[in-house]
């Protein structure tokens, strides 16, 4: 489909961008135009390449091939400051703040207003206050950022981007942590900017939001651009279809035929100050419980608390009907828990080490005799894991960093399967992995449940949650706010519960 461009010259024109990380292509031949006076949405599943595309334009990554033009001139960004100099502001997924500096400084760092060659602090504070005022947030510009909520930090970053008077603004999932009223306020600002002729790119997951604010939507899938639509000419269904690339029915769904057993994991009024409170949930053997909610709702923290990483202030955890004290991940492991963490590279893997070492890290002591490692046995375990999950590699001695994201995730899963757990906590198990690996993971989860394992699955991928869960719990602002059995769960109801909106049916 050809979309009329009108007479406008794009502010940013990216042509044929390629990018690969650790040998995995994350962006293939991506081209994008950002027009002045337009809000342009980039949508796609996790790992589709949206962030990478934005980061190339923002100077964070250098593409392996392709060019970026700004105002019709080809530019070569080697570092973020090159892009900033061209009037491009990029707001990152996670707020990038300096905890010990004041809010005003966080907004103006590197660009503080000066007078007579020295920083004019009065101007810094005054201008910061003005920008925050325009965003409608009540944050003291002199306060330190340490201690602000994620949403406030996100607002500080937004303020920083606005203070640059950037002509090009790229927002990477900026609204994930914001409340609906904050989102509304933000959208007001974005419309103003658009009307002043700025080009905005908006990456998001909530399609309703995107349809509300964006003029044009580009859909990415597996690193490629698969479609571009004007918002007024398309529908959510069409965009969803483009994102997933197949009819929704083809998504792997959990096999619900087998019986669900007794309670394997239970928490009672679990509370962790500042993170979550009063979490009471049960997961039965053979059951997959989905934990849905917005980013920052406290889901990851609940999983970490159960696994003994986060300290619990109140409440209890029961495993197999017994109240237990979980002293750290090691203790949790001994009690039959396993956690596949959200941040695979940071928390799940030892990147320079081989596949077999990673696979057997959690059970290296179990495989040992008198403290001596038995590598032959460990390698056998790794081979079994690789085979069961169909990990694609040259050999089990290959360093894990050379594997693709999906295969890395499979190794994390096989590491935890090797511990023979009774309860599996999966935190965003399919984030950033390709479709086939995703299906593989879903098949495995279904298989494990059929074998009688209890699974608690945190996922921001609504389709995944709906397809895989026997029951769905929804968290908002640190509390469980809704529970739906499989039959009653719909996307609309889950979203409504997660965002706290009243749904009229």
């Amino acid at each position, binding site marked *: 489909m050809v979309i009329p461009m009108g007479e406008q010259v794009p502010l940013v024109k990216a042509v044929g961008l390629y990018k*690969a990380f650790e*040998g995995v*292509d994350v962006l293939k031949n991506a081209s994008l135009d950002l027009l002045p006076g337009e809000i342009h949405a980039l949508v796609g599943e996790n790992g589709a390449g949206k962030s990478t595309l934005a980061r190339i334009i923002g100077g964070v990554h250098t593409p*392996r091939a392709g060019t970026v033009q700004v105002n019709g001139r080809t530019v070569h960004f080697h570092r973020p400051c090159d892009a900033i100099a061209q009037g491009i502001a990029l707001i990152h997924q996670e707020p990038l703040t300096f905890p010990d500096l004041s809010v005003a400084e966080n907004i103006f760092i590197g660009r503080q207003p000066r007078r007579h060659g020295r920083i004019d602090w009065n101007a810094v504070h005054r201008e910061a206050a003005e920008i925050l005022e325009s965003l409608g947030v009540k944050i003291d510009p002199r306060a330190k950022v340490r201690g602000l909520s994620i949403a406030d930090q996100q607002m500080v970053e937004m303020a920083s981007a606005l203070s640059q008077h950037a002509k090009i603004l790229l927002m990477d999932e900026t609204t994930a942590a914001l409340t609906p009223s904050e989102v509304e306020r933000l959208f007001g600002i974005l419309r103003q900017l658009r009307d002043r002729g700025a080009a905005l790119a908006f990456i998001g997951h909530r399609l309703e939001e995107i349809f509300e604010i964006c003029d044009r939507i580009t859909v990415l899938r597996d690193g490629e651009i698969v479609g571009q639509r004007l918002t007024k000419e398309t529908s959510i269904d069409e965009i969803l279809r483009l994102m997933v690339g197949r009819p929704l029915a083809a998504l792997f769904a959990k096999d619900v035929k087998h019986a669900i057993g007794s309670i394997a994991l239970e928490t009672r009024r679990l509370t962790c100050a500042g993170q979550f409170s009063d979490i009471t949930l049960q997961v039965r053997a053979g059951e997959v419980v989905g934990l849905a909610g917005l980013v920052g709702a406290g889901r990851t923290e609940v999983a970490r608390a159960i*696994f003994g*990483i986060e300290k619990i202030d109140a409440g209890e955890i029961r495993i197999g009907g017994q109240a237990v004290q979980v002293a*750290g*991940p*090691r203790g*949790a*492991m001994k009690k039959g828990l396993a*956690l596949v*963490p959200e941040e695979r590279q*940071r*928390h*799940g*893997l*030892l*990147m*320079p*080490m081989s596949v077999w*070492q990673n696979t057997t*890290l*959690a059970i*290296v*002591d179990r495989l*040992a005799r008198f*403290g*001596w*490692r038995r590598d032959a046995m460990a390698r056998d375990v790794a081979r079994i894991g690789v085979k069961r999950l169909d990990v694609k590699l040259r050999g089990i001695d290959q360093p894990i960093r050379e594997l693709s994201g999906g295969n890395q995730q499979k190794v994390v899963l096989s*590491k935890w399967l090797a*511990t023979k757990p009774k309860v599996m906590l999966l935190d965003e198990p399919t984030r950033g992995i390709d479709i086939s690996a995703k299906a593989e993971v879903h098949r495995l989860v279904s298989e494990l449940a059929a074998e009688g394992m209890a699974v608690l699955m945190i996922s921001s991928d609504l389709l995944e949650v709906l397809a895989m869960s026997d029951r769905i719990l929804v968290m908002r602002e640190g509390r469980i706010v809704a529970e739906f059995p499989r039959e009653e769960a719909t996307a609309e109801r889950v979203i409504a519960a997660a965002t706290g909106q009243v749904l009229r049916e």
Partner: protein
Amino acid sequence: MNEVLATGRRTVPRWMATPESITAALLVVAFGVSAAFVPRFLDAAYLLDRSSLYMEVGLMALAMTFVIVAGHIDLSCASILALVGTSIATLHVKLGVPLLPLVFLAPLLGALLGGINGVIVAQLGLPSLVVTLATMALYRGLAQVLLGDHSVSLPAWFTGIERVAIAGTLLPVPLVLFLGLAVALGLVLHKTVFGTWVFAMGTNAEAARYSGVPVAQVTISVFVMSGVFSAMAAMIMISRLGVARYDHALGLELDVITAVVLGGASIFGGRGTVTGSVLALFLIAVLQTGMGVANVKAEYQATASGALLIVAVLMGNCFARFRKWTASKGEGSCSGS
């Protein structure tokens, strides 16, 4: 330098670029050059005798390899040596405690001092650099408080362990002890569960914790090890010198760290071998011995040692970049086809 590296790029096989092989090659050449050009260098009795000067550093370097591979650093090891040495000597000479049981008590004292480091680092999550910098001053200060500027002499039967040779050979006891412990610790680091945990922790402490590695215990253990080995080094040093003083091994932590880093360990953790540290220790010993017999002045030796440390790390970085460069080339050609 750059030219050398540039021309060498395509000719060096990957295995040769491993840090230990660089150290080994440097050792061979340093030895060869010293033997060829320095008169009276090649004298087994002399070399073995002089090797005793490095055994204290060597013992501490073995444990420091664990500390550094685990992603930490222990600047206090030489101070632990001094404090253990002065404490044991004081207990014996001033309070009349029999020396033999004290020799076995020494590692316990070392373990305690190392354990203090470990607990502060592990439980409070403070950087080991700052914590051990503080205990470096603290332990050395306590030794000074204990003994002032006096030296305490030890009984004749205890002194001179470095002159005792293993029966029928010229090999002095400290050297044999060091080599034996090096083999043992090499096996521990590279073949046991504990060693695996040390590597896992140094590579990515968070991921290791998530994978059930008892990170706190491993942290404390490596510092305790460092303390124990420093205590053993203390016993050898006071036996070798016949006296205990608070300023024994002053500044020796630099030599220890130099040996470990020169042996290819990454100061950020996750990389390093006992073999590398041992080779690096002998490299330092050969260089200093060669320069000493050649009458090179002490100040040139100091400058050379400092430069050697930096050059070793820079070379490591160059190799890493080279490897990355070849890897990216490979990646480029693969996906281009």
